């Protein structure tokens, strides 16, 4: 699904060059749920920006869903973001002026779908996150967890191949965080690839694989896998019911 080889990303100001990513390589397979971890400034966010085609990089290759996306124009990148990738942000990034329905509608509008098709998708995805009764509400009228569910509905409506989540539970209390993680698990179980950047070990263990980033590189920490696999699977089973 996602294949990065020797990616280098440098931020330049007049006086300093910051090597945000240096020789960064990562392969994520279709259907995987991967957690990316690392301390502040390690390059996690840069990785996510590059992976999500929100930002360009200086050298290396990036193949997404079998297509080389290393050198694309802004509008080509916009198109792929719109159709193939879904974002879940730490701060939800709902548009405060738009009601829930219209917020989920935003990416669909840029895809040029018919009105009825859009309506179907929005209703279906709001159903999936259990918020169809709140479709006329404004984001400010919802709790943090509900807002994040709307953000996820926005992703689901677009039916992406890859979901990039950036600290999806960072702004939520633990109960709501659990809810969101359950939802992501469910989505992953349905076949969507998820790459999640997180600080939180509790969230990270819900993923099938953990990647550690340090100084702009993936480091091999040789995590003991055995201790993680069993409870994760059990968790999904229990919440999906």
């Amino acid at each position: 699904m996602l294949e990065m080889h020797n990616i280098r990303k440098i931020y330049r100001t007049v006086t300093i060059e910051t090597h945000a990513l240096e020789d960064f390589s990562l392969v994520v397979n279709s259907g995987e749920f991967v957690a990316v971890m690392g301390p502040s400034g390690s390059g996690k966010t840069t990785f996510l920006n590059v992976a999500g085609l929100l930002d360009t990089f200086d050298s290396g290759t990036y193949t997404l869903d079998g297509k080389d996306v290393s050198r694309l124009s802004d509008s080509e990148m916009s198109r792929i973001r719109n159709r193939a990738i879904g974002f879940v942000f730490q701060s939800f990034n709902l548009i405060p002026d738009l009601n829930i329905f219209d917020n989920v509608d935003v990416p669909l509008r840029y895809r040029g779908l018919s009105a009825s098709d859009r309506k179907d998708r929005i209703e279906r995805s709001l159903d999936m996150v259990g918020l169809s009764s709140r479709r006329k509400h404004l984001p400010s009228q919802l709790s943090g967890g509900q807002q994040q569910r709307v953000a996820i509905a926005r992703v689901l409506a677009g039916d992406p191949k890859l979901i990039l989540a950036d600290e999806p539970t960072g702004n939520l209390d633990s109960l709501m965080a659990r809810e969101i993680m359950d939802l992501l698990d469910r989505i992953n179980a349905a076949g969507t690839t998820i790459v999640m950047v997180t600080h939180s070990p509790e969230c990270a263990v819900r993923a099938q694989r953990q990647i550690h980033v340090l100084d702009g590189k993936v480091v091999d920490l040789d995590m003991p896998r055995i201790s993680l696999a069993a409870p994760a699977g059990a968790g999904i089973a229990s919440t999906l019911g």
Partner: protein
Amino acid sequence: MLGYNVKIALKSLRRNPILTSLLIGAIALGICVSTTFIALRHLFEKDPLPGKSQTLFYVRLDNWDPQRAYVAEDPKSLPSQVTYRDAMALMKSGIATQQTPTYKTRLFVHPDPKVSRPFSENIRLAYRDFFTMFNVPFQYGGAWDKAADAKPEQVIVLDQTMNQKLFGGANSIGRTVRLGERNYKVVGVIGDWRPAVKFYDMTQSVTAEFEHVFMPFNFTRPLELTPSGNSDGWKGPDGDSYDSFLNSEVVWMQFWAELPTAEKQAAYRQYVDNYVRDQKKLGRFQRPLHNEVTSIPDLMKELNAVPPAVKSMSIVSMLFLVVCSLNLVGLLLGKFLARIPEVSVRRALGASRLQVFWQHVVECELVGIAGGAIGLLLSMGILRLIGKFAHQQAPELVRLDGEMVLISIFLSLVAGLLAGLYPSWRVCSVAPAMQLKVQ
């Protein structure tokens, strides 16, 4: 997509009503002021006879003082009218398809004593061609015929105002009106005819009142008529008789010729020059050969039909619109930059730069349209007010015509677009990744 952009734009405009009313107010003021003054200017510059004015020519000959130009400081200047004898000579060219000398005089109108006391009135003398050349519309009847010109027959044409005054607006064809000491039969009543500029005689004010009565030119001599408009002479008549006035170098009438083709125009200029050369042999026209055969649009330009104050105000008003637009740029910039977080979300969700750009341009245009509409209405009101002061003869002419409404709408769209381009570009060129974590 346009519908969606309009929806987003309306939402965004509703969010901050104060800012939105400032934005709309800025455009409205700019459009109001610029439209008002451009309309005033347009009024004076407008072609009075579209499609025809290029073929109608005003003739001037330099018969002035050998030692001194018509305007002493400007050696290129020449008299603004022609003499009676030269007008008669020009009538014989045989080149113009239609032609007429014309001037105004004053005569007493003696209405039915029950209607009013006698009153003195400006009467315009002309050949029948006057009406057909200048496309004068008729409510009743029409121009007199060629025979009436030649004889001349005692016939007149009234305009609506005079017909109202004398006959209460009824069809007065065939009725008689006493002018001076003779009775004249009404053959035509002019319909709705009121160009903003009195283009057929610009020797006095261009907004001067039109004459209300017209009679055949050939009454000039039998009635010994004298002009009530301008008359200029560098030397007086050689005697006291009326004929010596007609034969003098005093200029007092306008002369018009219709010359539809370039060949005719060239031939006519040749004819005029030859005529003056012949006259030089008789001792007249001692200044260097200088004649002007000028089309209506050129004449309006040359005689400065647009009052200088109106011209200055139209320039100033355009700058005013620029100031309003600069304000708009500043306000839109602030408004759009404050929206960068939202835009970055849209960008992350797949909106392309162009889509974001258009979304914001649409918003600017909505402001432009709203402001333009308000400005247009304001301007109509102001023009009505100005009309009362500036164009006493015909205040109803000071208004926005279709062309001006289009210009005004165009101006507001352009102002909205120009003011919005830079802010829209700024907001769409922000990289999405940078703003992701900021709310």
